[in-house]
């Protein structure tokens, strides 16, 4: 439609030698990026798929073993425990930081003075290196010198006086707590930016119609920030498959695999057992997870969802 009115959409026309030359010119400009992508992304990815079918140790020769690694995966109880923990982790992170971020952002929208300070304050933990955050929280959660022990000794509050990372009932949730502490400022800042962009007239109309604060949030804010919200959910679902550093730096996946996730299992398999081929098979499951999430996102878009 626009093209018939005289504007030319890039790439929409392919008539004559001049256009072909222009098209070729565009490809020549993008070629270095394509080459780089092939070398550092596509090539290693395809290599990763291949070694999932081998017994490669990480150095030296590799032998093709067919589906042996996949058969082992089905029998690997630690892998299934890790997969289950990844699902639990995803559920926690799809809810807790999003709810906290929504609440925090919504409340901050009503603040004019000091909002920037609060934004920075909430965002600072997100930029702290994981090695620093885990070190601090490992002490805060320690049963002998931690916060729980202090609260118990000082105020007689006992319910927090536990070995949070030492118990297999609480290790995964303890790590999820500290990761949430570091992460929730990120959705808050994104959601706050999205909420700030909502047309104020919509709220005025809603108020004229007698909508309460909650109804305004439910019927104006949420639909308006849906693309940002869905983007966050999508990224969290992907990142949850790849979680590694917080667990590796605190429990290493223990006690007794209670906090094991696919990332830590993959690491131990590749770099402790020297079974890189099998580790690549675990990696393929992580890729499959990400593909399913992205596939679901694309499917919903095709169904007309505004995301």
């Amino acid at each position, binding site marked *: 439609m626009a093209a018939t009115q005289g504007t030319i959409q890039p790439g929409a026309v392919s008539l004559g030698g001049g256009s072909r030359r222009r098209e070729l010119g565009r490809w020549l400009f993008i070629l270095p990026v394509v080459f780089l992508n092939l070398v550092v992304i596509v090539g290693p990815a395809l290599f990763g798929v291949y070694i999932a079918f081998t017994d490669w140790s*990480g150095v030296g020769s590799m032998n093709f073993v067919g589906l042996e690694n996949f058969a082992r995966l089905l029998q690997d109880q630690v892998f299934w425990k890790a997969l289950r923990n990844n699902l639990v982790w995803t559920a926690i992170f799809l809810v807790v930081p999003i709810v906290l971020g929504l609440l925090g952002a919504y409340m901050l929208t009503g603040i004019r003075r000091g909002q920037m300070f609060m934004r920075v304050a909430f965002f600072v933990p997100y930029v702290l290196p994981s090695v620093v955050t885990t070190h601090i929280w490992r002490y805060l*959660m320690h049963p002998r010198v931690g916060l729980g022990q202090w609260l118990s000794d000082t105020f007689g509050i006992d319910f927090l006086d536990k070995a949070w990372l030492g118990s297999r009932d609480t290790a995964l949730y303890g790590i999820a707590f500290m990761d949430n502490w570091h992460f929730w400022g990120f959705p808050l800042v994104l959601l706050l930016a999205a909420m700030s962009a909502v047309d104020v007239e919509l709220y005025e109309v809603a108020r004229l119609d007698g909508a309460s604060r909650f109804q305004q949030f439910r019927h104006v804010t949420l639909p308006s920030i849906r693309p940002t919200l869905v983007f966050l959910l999508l990224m969290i679902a992907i990142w949850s498959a790849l979680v590694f550093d917080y667990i590796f730096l605190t429990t290493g996946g223990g006690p*007794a695999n209670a906090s094991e996730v696919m990332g830590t299992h993959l690491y131990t398999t590749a770099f402790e057992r020297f079974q890189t081929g099998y580790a690549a098979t675990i990696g393929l499951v992580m890729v499959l997870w990400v593909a399913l999430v992205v596939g679901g996102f694309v499917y919903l878009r095709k169904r007309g969802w505004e995301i």
Partner: protein
Amino acid sequence: MIRRILVVALLLSTLGVGAVSAQDGVTITWWSEVFSMPSNIQEVLVDAFNEAHPGITLEMVGQEDLNQTLRTAIQAGEAPDLLVTPGASFIAEYVDAGLVEPLDDAAAELGWADKVLDWAYQSGQLGGVLYSIPLTYESLVLFYNKTVFEENGWEAPTTFEEFEAIVAAAQDIGIYPLAYGNATWQPSNEHLMGMYLNAYAGRENVYKALVGEIPWTHESIVGATELLRRHIADDALFSGGLENYFANGGDDWRAEFASGEAAMILSGTWNFRSIGGFFEEAGNEWDWVPIPSMSDMAGEYGYELATGTTVSVNAQSPNKDAAIKALDFLISDPALVLKLAADVGFGEWVVPVHFGVDDFPEGTDERVVRFFSDFAAVTGEGRIGYTTWTFWPAAPNVHLWEAVENVWWGDISVEEYLEEHERLWQIERDAGNLLPVPAPAMGGM
């Protein structure tokens, strides 16, 4: 014509420069883990070697996370001339890949078998061929808080009965009998597993299991694993129970021990390096004794053999001879070795060469000298044990320290754990991945 002469002269001069460069410009690189590098390494090893070898320049480069860095460098064909690995078990895969130079000829010519402790020399061999020299060795002992012991009138335990009596006495006065934890190093579990295997099942049974003469499900191994399970899970001897053990990092359990909240630790001699600071801060004193035998099967006490990092020559290096000279320079001078080791508190760089009490630098801690003297005498009699990180192939090694947690939590039985351990060992035996194991003195039980 003049132009031609000039060109020929230029070419000849270039060739001449090239010849001089090839002769004088040999540079060999040696990467070392940063945290374990002695601060005096440049002066004591690098400068001394370079001065003694005109024409060769040794460069020592500190690396963070050396093992990962080295694996990446190997893939890229950029590995240094001297390859340092975290342990003998890591060498096997490099040998399989043809990355490591066999050192038998050099060793024979330079007399390395006489310079390096016999068991350590053997631990560098695969299929009878020498591929590596250990850069450090260590063992496991029982450390005790001397101040707490003196205050309570306790003697350092020399038998299992005495050990159990101290455990009971410590519990009576409300302190932990033992401190330990694995929060900052999950494989710490294997320190305890190794100790109990050697001290309960005995060196002969562990040796037989290592060489496949008895299965890992043998009753002696079951007994050792069950004793540790009882001590750590049922009796909560280590830092008050499993949950504290899993929450404790290295600093935590060292602080518990030094402050007197715990009476003893079962750990490695690498603690010579770090434990002093904790005790100084707490105002207490420490000492050590060999780990008492825990059953009649174990016989008289011995020391577990452990090599830490190893060094090999890169098979792809264009300067293999120069790299071998650097290795020879290191292992030929016990005084040089001890200067390096003393700088890192004898926790690293204790290259296993023959040294006597007089070789130690002046001012060396008497407790350290006592350990190395006794270690030499006892292991010389064949009273040796086996650390899991030196003599276990990678997959069974990981299983040993990882799955034992499931035993401690009661998810699986000791028998189920050892059946899986035996299965993993059988895979390694079938693949010919076994590491060299020096035999102990037999029949001494």
